[in-house]
């Protein structure tokens, strides 16, 4: 029987492994650093402002969808929470901002965003606490049913929400009291871009933190996470709440920029659309949300005009093809291509 030969940490540290250790330490330390390519989407967004000044209203909606998709990527792509009802938080945020202005006369935009985030986060926390004990089909059903409940509640309280006719008369006061809103949506574009940028940095920080690593662990192997003592349920509820808050901000931006909100913001169609965007772009990559949302919105803008049925068919077909052949989305395809020509893709 082996004698007491303590395999204590540190007992085997020798010169030979020093080099290897240093490389590993460096890897961990540099994981989160900004890569040059990450500047691309932001430069593109600014470029678009100058190249397409008359399409800024559309551009704002694209940015809003990117933000919405980023919030879904956080909970689905990173934490593996399968939700068919994420639009509930988008809608709650939209109605909060809308009603603040139209019913309570509170027109300051940025506090509108905070209020929307707060309410969406609250609902996210409460529903998440109950729902996230489950996984798989049960969770899908629960998120779907919960979102429909929110929709039906909105429908029932048409006095509050205006039902399918919606809430209008949303008047947003100038940003910081200085920047007024022009007909072309220029101010809204910059405003949305700034909000997206800040929140994106927040999400990026979370994703590269130890908490973010734990989320990936939960997604990849929840059994192992339980076995190493991870408080899985709390981690999931936390990220779900954050995701709900950000979706709420996206909804608020939507309400503010459109000056009009209907129950459509709470619909299954909206939950499905953001899911499609994310799958198209690639989950768990943060920038997949950018790619997917932009591609989806541009295609929709061009094809839905031709024929809504044609567009719907195309989305369905894209989805089927993506699941069968390009499961990791466009970014996944790009990564594979990159690997083919010799680069080493980083997560």
């Amino acid at each position, binding site marked *: 029987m082996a004698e007491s030969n303590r395999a204590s940490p540190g007992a085997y540290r020798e010169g030979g492994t020093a080099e290897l250790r240093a490389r590993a330490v460096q890897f961990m330390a540099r994981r989160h650093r900004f890569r040059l390519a990450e500047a691309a989407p932001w430069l593109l967004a600014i470029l678009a402002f100058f190249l397409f000044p008359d399409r800024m209203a559309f551009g704002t909606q694209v940015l809003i969808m990117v933000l919405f998709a980023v919030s879904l990527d956080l909970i689905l792509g990173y934490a593996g929470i399968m939700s068919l009802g994420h639009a509930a938080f988008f809608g709650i945020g939209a109605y909060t901002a809308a009603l603040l202005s139209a019913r309570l006369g509170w027109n300051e935009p940025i506090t509108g965003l905070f209020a929307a985030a707060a309410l969406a986060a609250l609902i996210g926390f409460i529903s998440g606490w109950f729902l996230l004990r489950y996984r798989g*089909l049960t969770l*899908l059903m629960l998120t779907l*049913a919960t979102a*429909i409940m929110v929709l039906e509640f909105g*429908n029932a309280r048409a006095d509050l929400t205006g039902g399918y006719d919606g809430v209008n008369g949303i008047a947003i006061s100038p940003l910081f009291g200085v920047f007024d809103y022009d007909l072309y949506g220029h101010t809204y574009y910059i405003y949305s871009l700034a909000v997206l940028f800040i929140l994106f940095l927040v999400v990026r920080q979370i994703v590269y933190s130890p908490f973010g690593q734990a989320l990936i662990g939960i997604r990849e192997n929840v059994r192992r996470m339980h076995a190493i003592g991870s408080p899985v349920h709390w981690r999931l509820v936390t990220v779900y709440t954050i995701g709900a808050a950000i979706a709420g901000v996206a909804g608020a931006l939507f309400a503010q920029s459109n000056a009009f909100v209907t129950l459509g913001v709470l619909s299954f169609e909206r939950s499905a659309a953001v899911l499609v965007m994310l799958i198209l772009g690639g989950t768990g990559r943060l920038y997949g949300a950018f790619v997917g949302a932009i591609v989806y919105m541009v295609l929709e803008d061009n094809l839905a005009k031709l024929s809504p049925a044609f567009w719907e068919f195309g989305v*369905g077909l894209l989805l*089927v093809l993506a699941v069968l052949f390009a499961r990791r989305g466009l970014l996944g395809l790009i990564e594979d291509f990159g690997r083919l020509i010799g680069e080493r893709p980083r997560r």
Partner: protein
Amino acid sequence: MPHFANVIVSILFDGLAYAMILFIISVGLSITMGLMGFVNLAHGAFAMAGGYLAVTLTRSWGVPFIPSLVITFLVVGAASVPFERLLYARLYMAGELDQVLLTIGLTLMAIAGYTFFYGTQPQSMGVPSYLTGQIDLGFREFPAYRVLMIAVGAILIAILWYGFERTSIGAKIRAAVDNRRMAQSIGINVDRLFMLTFAVGGGLAALGGALAVYIMGITPTFAIQYLVLFLIVVSVGGLGSIKGTVLAALVLGIFDNAGKYLYPTGGAFFIYAVTVLLLLLRPSGLYGRE
């Protein structure tokens, strides 16, 4: 009958008819999900296909009502097999999300297709005159068509129950639902079994869709609109259980109908609230396995 009781009976009766449709459409979904663990959100599209096929048969081709129902069952049932073999079978080992995405994609394609060919207006079906009136059941008169729905539902429940509990195929299905690997290891050809159940399930969905046309009309959004209800019936009843599907369909059908009658706006809220509560308490449904 006193007026109050009359209203109750009407609500129950309508709810029962509605429940039968829910059952007929959902039972296929329950068995296939319980058997293969495949989340098929395109099931609503099969029901929709049945509805449209029945419309074309009775209106454009003058096929009588009952034969149309039978043909619908057979044709859609057979047509679902290539879907299963060529598309679904590729994702049996994939995660639920992939299955959800694939089947939603198929559903969207179906909706777009039917919009293109039939337009967005609700279509109706040719129904023989003996079904458009009332039938006297002794203590009261009831709409004939709904009596038919309930009758068809009852007959199908009996046939399915018998097939499930008393035939060897039924036994094999139950065994495979219970423990697929074990069933395979004792020589049950699970793939063929699944093809059969999928075809029957699809055919039944189509039959239910066809039956529903007279009551609810058929539009291209049928596939998604009622999908949630089918999913609820299946989740609440428990995957792979006929008994569960019957019970869930009854409860949901009657309460949804009652809710719509008594609280037209927002009555649906309660159905979803009850569903959420039930799933939180019993995540595998009333008769599902862990």
